[in-house]
């Protein structure tokens, strides 16, 4: 488990980094936290010619809020989001619910949210959240900057709309309305491993009726999925949450949404210990439970 030989540069500015990335004849990889890249290099599944270490690039560690938008720089580590105050309002609460599911604390101290989007693992928590909450990915190359909407970004497992010479400099999330309730529940075999399924939900209620709902599905297809069909059946519905400890009755809108998410939105693949039939079951249950968690946040 040793990497093949590679060249290494550690630029100080974004422009220097972009110049290094611009050499498209070579396999050039960006190193931020190294959460996945280092492992893949050790396994020699990735054998880059050049590694561009952006950890010394000034300004990329910025986390800022302007005009109802949160901007997260490429070097902001997962661990930052463990605090619900890192980002204001419901979004901060959602990030905090999700962040603790990412690996272990030492890895959260290195890995980055932007790195997760760049890697685009189907089991990435952040990718599904970015998709569900209409995040915008800002990329730059020597040719200039552009923005990619999350819904246009994911192309398949580890495949994205980012070009090889582009660096993701930041990620922007619109802040949801203050009265939005959020939920995040992950199902996995041990705390150490990837999610078999995880669900993110954000629910906004006006006058007791659901006015907006977003459901992000983690590891329910070959890429992150937004459960549009499930969301459709919820818009305009009344929110009634059963007492704590009660399982959702089969006819409850959240349970029905779960079933629809599992059967219509998701396209689960087979893995050892999780065939598609089992995964659909988990999706259905988790969507229902996550919606309930979000609704409880609204009603508090």
């Amino acid at each position, binding site marked *: 488990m040793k990497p*093949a*030989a590679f060249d290494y540069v550690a630029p100080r500015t974004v422009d220097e980094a972009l110049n290094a990335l611009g050499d498209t004849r070579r396999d050039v990889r960006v190193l931020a936290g190294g959460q996945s890249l280092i492992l893949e290099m050790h*396994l020699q599944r990735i054998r880059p010619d050049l590694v561009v270490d952006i950890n010394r690039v000034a300004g990329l560690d910025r986390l800022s809020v302007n005009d109802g938008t949160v901007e997260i720089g490429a070097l902001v580590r997962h661990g930052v989001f463990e605090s619900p105050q890192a980002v204001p309002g419901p979004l901060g609460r959602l990030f905090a619910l999700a962040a603790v599911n990412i690996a272990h604390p030492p890895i959260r101290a290195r890995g980055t949210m932007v790195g997760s989007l760049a890697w685009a693992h189907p089991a990435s928590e952040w990718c599904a959240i970015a998709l569900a909450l209409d995040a915008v990915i800002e990329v730059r190359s020597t040719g200039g900057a552009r923005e990619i909407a999350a819904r246009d970004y994911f192309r398949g497992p580890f495949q994205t709309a980012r070009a090889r010479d582009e660096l993701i400099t930041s990620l922007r999330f619109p802040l949801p309305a203050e009265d939005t309730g959020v939920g995040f529940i992950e199902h996995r*075999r*041990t705390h150490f*491993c990837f999610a078999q399924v995880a669900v993110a939900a954000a629910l906004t209620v006006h006058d007791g009726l659901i006015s907006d709902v977003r459901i992000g599905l983690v590891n329910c297809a070959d890429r992150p999925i937004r459960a549009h069909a499930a969301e459709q059946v919820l818009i305009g519905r009344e929110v009634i949450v059963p007492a704590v400890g009660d*399982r959702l009755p089969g006819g409850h809108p959240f349970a029905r949404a779960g079933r629809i998410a599992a059967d219509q939105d998701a396209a689960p693949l087979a893995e050892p210990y999780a065939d598609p039939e089992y995964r659909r079951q988990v999706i259905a249950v*988790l969507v229902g439970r996550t919606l309930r968690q979000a609704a409880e946040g609204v009603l508090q």
Partner: protein
Amino acid sequence: MEQWARREDRRLLTGRGQFVADMAVQNCLDAVFVRSGIAHGVVRDVDCAAAREVPGVVGVWSAADLSGLPACAHAAARLQDLPPVPHTLLAKLSTAEAVAGREWPALAKDRVRYAGEAVAVVVGEDRYRAEDGAAEVAVRIDPLPAVVTPSAAAGDSVLLFDGLSNTAFRGEAGTPIEETVWQEAAVVVEARYRQQLLMPTPMECRTILAVPEQDGRLTVWSGHQMPHRLRRELAALLGMPLDRIRVVVPDTGGAFGSKSAAFPEFVTVVYLAVMLGRPVRWIEDRLESMTAATRGRGQDQRVRLAADADGHLLAYELQIDADVGAYPHLGVGLPMQTAWMATGPYATPRVHASVRSVLTNTMVTYPYRGAGRPEATIALERSMDLLARRLGLDPAELRRRNFIPAEDFPYQTPTGRCYDSGNYAAALDLALETIGYDTWRAEQTRRRHDPRALPLGIGLSCYVERSGGEPGGLHDFAGIEAHEDGTIIARCGAASSGQSHETTFPALVAATLGVDESRVQLIEGDTDAQPEGLGSFASRSAQVDGAALHHASALLIDLARERAADLWGTPVEEVEWSDGSVHHVRDGSAAMDVAELVKATGPLSVDDRFESGMGFPFGAHVAVAEVDPELGTVRVLRLVVVDDCGVVLNPAIVRGQAFGSAVQGIGQALYEGIPYGDDGVPLLAGGLLDYLLPTATEVPPIEVKETRTPSPSTPLGAKGAGESGCIGTPAAIVNAVADALQIADPGLLQMPLTPDVVWRAARAAKYEGAR
């Protein structure tokens, strides 16, 4: 002053341990193996030419490159072709018949028989360069159909060795049971259980460093459980006299049974070191270990258990189809440990166990913590719960009715064991009392009436294990030496891979001699320092080496008294020993410390070879688990493990062992398993992200308690400790889940109880009478 719980902790917990990978040796080369990605196939070509051109690569060899060589006139060894891997007769783990016609080449020659089998070796200036070289070796293998389960392999439709059956060994324990016994019994339960293959997964994978010395000797450093065995096997392979090889075991990061043999990589590395006249080392990495290190367990079992209407056991039959991997050299006889221990803690009049060991296209099966006893316990204890349900009896009550009574020891079992001592009911009573059995049963009833509550189950598991080793392997070496400076040197044939010998043994010697513990130093794991030794396996170190050290200490006292008697010109009966000193019984003069005696009379040392009996530790484990039937997740709410390993030398260390092995038992029950693709290749691309071990986050509240029933067959009364959790815990967890779900078909719950398995079981039919 810093406080360390164990002597070795100062070194190990401050990063100052010295493991094989830490050793800095001039001119050392790193070996890397090129491994087959195919489970079963014909080797067509192994082309090493390009690899030899890689900068930093010193040499690359396939099996063909190391065959048909002229005899090499080496100063020390008789080196010719790369020798094959030796088989072991220790503890009847293998047999000459099983290996006849089935050579295990150190590098695969014309056939690969498991994914991960080495086909070439690259030696480079460091591991990076050697891996660069390995990436350039071109291997062409034509695949053959692969068989990775005993049932698939037993039919012999695919043969691993042409002209030879895949069934490499058959054995039995006890007498076959007549059909009338089953026909006439009031109740008979039958079931099939799968004991999945497991990886021992020590923190440190396998290591070896072979250093040819200036004087023609060879020093071999290895994280190993049996240094003298390794020396013996390597000497035979290399044609070297025994005293020309020194094997040293430095700090070792765990073994769990998996580090006691001479493996294909060891044979190759030592051969190359001698051939090249340079130090060569191999530090196995995790991914290699996951493909090419030995596996544990691997049995398909069929059981029948008969009882009368009162729940008294009448007969038990266990049929084992064992998956012993691709070569029969290390573990073809290992399933006999299951057969011999099939009786368990019950006074069943008829017990019969039969074994069929089948070769499969998987890495070789070898002892892993528990080694045969977990398989015996799980089969019997799951069946006991089935029987209790059929009889409408509380599972604790069924066990109580059948325990071998405490007054019946020594007890000769129908499967050939003679249990030394036991009080099985006491262990179960303590376990039930500790966990609050009645309270949990009440909670279970409450939940069964509450549709909103998660189902809860209580699982029992009572076990008997065997410690010390098999007859012929129950002795070890111990030596004690007193020095002028007051130091006492203790030596023994054990080799710690993390079992706290440095703490336990000096304390034992110090207590026997009556000296301060700080005066005693332990030397072990070095074939130059111990003339002979067996090592550490089968939970034998305290039981056998502890007894040997105790006995050697007593001999040293006798010797010191004789010396003093000579010195003082008095009869030896008038010389007494106390607190590390000799003194005259009647003379009022001051005592003479043993250090003064050495100064006055010369070196004082004894070497001893001591033999212990077999020990039969036992215990009772109880688990409470709740199941989320919608997701299939199992939450262990509480686990109580009561172990009895006789007299305990160091309670904190034994508890640590009990706790750790219980966690490994949880691993077998809930998490660990090797999924195979249709091509017979393990699906473990993500390493430990795919083979899941319980980590700190998964450890439930575990309470460790003990009862103490001394062994009459071991001098200290100590039996082995440390394997208990792997043996007792899995069945407790599985029984708890089965109890929660009340399923009719026990076959639905096969380990590991992953959420998908439990979810399917939760949807299946419940047994009659379930509520």
